[in-house]
């Protein structure tokens, strides 16, 4: 096997040094009765070339060729990814390093993540951003735990327009410790109905996603006001990070904690993972944040450098008293995001964000022309809800199969009251002609 360098002679010399007669005897410290009797039943090993063939064959039944067009988002977005970013992130100095525990030989990862933290604070308008989390949903769960611990309360309010999968994760995380999640209903505009929070009693925080799952931009000013009236922490989340290139940041509205998904920043969709969890907070909450933080410092010669810092919050030091159990995060994806954000820069992020909005608006207009109804009268970023005319579902299925057009996500699975409602999306990868082709098929 080409990954294993041991020759017969190496093995003999090494066994001799260890004083063990055979490879098998190295396992004599394991009682015989604990050893397995049979060989592992696995497929016969493949050569590199056979593996290529096998994977070609396997992936031929995934409908995700280059000609596919994505008019869907729902937490995973089709964006252009520059070749330079892919090229840089493949450098094995980044990819094959461990967590930067030895800072003298990890300055690349450390400065890169420090720059990532800086750009995330700028984008979210917050004081501190962590070195990353698994994904948007798990990041959100961690911020809820912070609020509950901080306020020492049992209840927390969560908008019903937070991504349904994220809300499921919240339930999983909060269930064993007995915390109660109260869902805030949505109103006729497809926005969180903050009026309903009034009668909820004491709550540790309010979590709101903007743009919300329907694509609509929430009134975060009202969210902050509602939190103040309840003395609750304001948790703001997002699944489409690019929206922050155009929209006011959660920090500008006074968010205490921000959780988000960073897949839009140069990461492939990859069937939903690995994505990038983002967590940011105010300075006041810095020591409550989960996971790793990189800080700037000086070396013994007074030269600037970077280290992992504030580790006393973390599990390897505090064990059962840690702020979270997270160890590995999604570091390489944070680095990818930093490379992407550095590439798009100040002007690029705004232009791309604006393009997303323009394309989605055009798609909405064209769908309306062929009989789709728009149920919510709110401003949106790159996703919106449309009610389909009769016969659309059959066409939608056929379009996926025949053309590789993914036209909308059925919403009644998540909101049973929304029969025939679809969540549409258009990003900068959608051309006018693509929309016209879709319209041609569905009219």
């Amino acid at each position: 096997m080409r990954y294993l360098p041991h020759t017969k002679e190496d093995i003999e010399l090494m066994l001799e040094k260890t004083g063990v007669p055979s490879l098998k005897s190295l396992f004599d410290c394991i009682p015989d009765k604990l050893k397995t009797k049979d060989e592992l039943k696995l497929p016969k090993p493949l050569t590199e070339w056979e593996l290529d063939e096998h994977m070609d064959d396997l992936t031929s039944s995934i409908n995700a060729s280059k000609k596919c067009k994505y008019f869907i988002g729902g937490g995973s977005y089709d964006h252009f990814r520059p070749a330079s970013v892919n090229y840089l992130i493949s450098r094995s100095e980044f990819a094959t390093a461990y967590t930067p525990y030895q800072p003298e030989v990890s300055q690349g990862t450390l400065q890169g993540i420090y720059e990532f933290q800086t750009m995330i604070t700028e984008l979210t308008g917050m004081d501190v951003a962590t070195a990353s989390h698994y994904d948007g949903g798990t990041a959100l769960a961690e911020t809820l735990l912070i609020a509950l611990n901080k306020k020492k309360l049992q209840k927390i309010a969560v908008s019903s327009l937070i991504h349904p999968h994220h809300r499921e994760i919240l339930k999983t995380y909060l269930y064993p410790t007995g915390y109660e999640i109260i869902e805030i209903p949505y109103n006729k505009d497809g926005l969180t109905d903050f009026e309903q929070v009034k009668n909820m009693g004491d709550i540790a925080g309010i979590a709101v996603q903007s743009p919300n799952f329907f694509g609509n931009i929430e009134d975060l000013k009202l969210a902050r006001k509602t939190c103040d009236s309840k003395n609750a922490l304001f948790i703001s989340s997002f699944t489409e990070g690019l929206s922050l290139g155009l929209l006011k940041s959660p920090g500008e509205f006074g968010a205490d904690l921000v959780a988000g998904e960073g897949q839009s920043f140069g990461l492939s969709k990859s069937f939903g993972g690995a994505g990038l969890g983002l967590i940011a907070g105010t300075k006041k909450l810095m020591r409550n944040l989960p996971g790793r933080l990189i800080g700037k410092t000086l070396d013994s010669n007074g030269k600037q450098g970077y280290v992992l810092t504030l580790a006393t919050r973390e599990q390897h030091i505090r064990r059962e008293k840690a702020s979270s159990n997270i160890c590995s995060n999604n570091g390489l994806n944070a680095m990818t995001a930093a490379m992407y954000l550095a590439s798009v820069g100040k002007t690029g992020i705004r232009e791309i964000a604006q393009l997303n909005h323009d394309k989605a608006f055009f798609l909405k207009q064209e769908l309306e022309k062929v009989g789709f109804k728009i149920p919510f009268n709110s401003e949106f970023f790159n996703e919106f809800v449309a009610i389909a005319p009769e016969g659309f579902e059959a066409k939608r299925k056929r379009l996926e199969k025949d053309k590789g057009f993914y036209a909308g996500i059925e919403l009644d699975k998540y909101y049973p009251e929304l029969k025939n409602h679809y969540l549409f999306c258009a990003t900068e990868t959608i051309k006018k002609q693509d929309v016209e082709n879709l319209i041609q098929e569905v009219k």
Partner: protein
Amino acid sequence: MNSQIGTSGLIFNEPQLWDKSIPGRCGISIPSNDVAKIELSKELTRENVEFPELSEPDVVRHYTRLSQWNFGVDSGMYPLGSCTMKYNPKTNEVQASKQEIAGAHPLIGDDNSQGALKLMYDLQVMLAEITGMHATTVQPAAGAHGELAGMLIIHKYHEKKGRQRSKIIIPDTAHGTNPASATLCGYESIKVSSDENGVLTPEAVAELMDEDTAGIMITNPNTLGLFEKHIKEIADLVHAKGGLVYGDGANMNAIMGYVKPGEIGIDVLHLNLHKTFATPHGGGGPGSGPVVVTKELEPFLPVPIIAKNNDKYVIIEDMPDSIGRMHTFYGHFNVLVKAYSYILSMGAEGLKNVSEYAVLNANYIKESLKGVLNLPYDRPCMHECVFNDKKQAQFHITTMDMAKRLLDLGFHPPTVYFPLVVEGAFMVEPTETESKQTIDEFINAVKTITQEAKENPEILHSAPNITKVTRLDEVQAARKPCLRG
């Protein structure tokens, strides 16, 4: 052989991104707008995002220079104990970046994603076979996330039995993630000490195990690199009191093809694909932490699960006893692709060889260095061995000094000061992909350092001497945190 591999090389200084910014530059090609521009309301939109403005070559040079300040497995031997820093095969990266894998949207449905579902399903089956367990979830995003999933399963199991328990037994050698995961499930961690031989005894566990204890979390081989040979007796007595045995599979690299955790009393176990199954660690992830369970615990696995119905692969979300969802979609799919490719490349015999050579390498290092470094537990080890700095104390040299000096000599240091039960621990895990020749160079480097400790301790105190930066002031970094530029 005698020429030292560590050298300062040609290292460039490189400022922070924003110090290179020149107004008017952009590093991405912006698609032209072929539809009307629609302005959002003023009160919703922001001022410009203050990001740096850089051209594509600016960005490429920046990150290329940064990368040159990093040490990876591809640069040199990385014997971090408990981290299994083995070679990450390149073909696995190629497979994960195939158009159909990288391009697949997670909500395209079963019919459009058969190949992806088949891959996950087959990986589930192979991981269950390797560990001797019944069912697998590949959803957890990292080892600690798998631990949390596993502990939630134990929590749910007790709830279904009709009475929740309040405590969990955790050995003093455990990773810090173990007690932290238990806390998230509301369990109080009860510490059990290992004996003078570095392993757990049934007696010590029996003293703590009662009917208010949910179970025990065991890492086997443990973090001293020793096999917990009483595991079966311990599992039996935990089961007798109605508890479950959680296995931390971080060290699975030592026992593939020799021991199946499912056959020695483990009920639930997590694996680290970024350790045992050769996916890159990425400077801190993304990893992947699948969880394997016994038949009895299968109903509690997180949703969605990937199943096979006749010839069709399906995503099942409706499992009434499930602990619920752990990840927004199906886990770190592109990491799963790499682990799957690895297992297919290795086969059964290959994986067994992996464990054999990993254990051979560790024992070879143990025997070669025990004359110059103190070895607190002098007995056959598995895939890693733990020394400490006791012999160097007389020269006022610590484990950290030796670790830093190794950087000068061209090696990544072992894990230091863990496990906590060994004072000044120096924990070496070479992995199977290091050759005898490289390991001999490492052994020589450590021997050189122990000689320097006697003759020239100053060079150790000031080490590392040829890296881009010298020892960093971590106290100042924590006292006055500067976390953004």
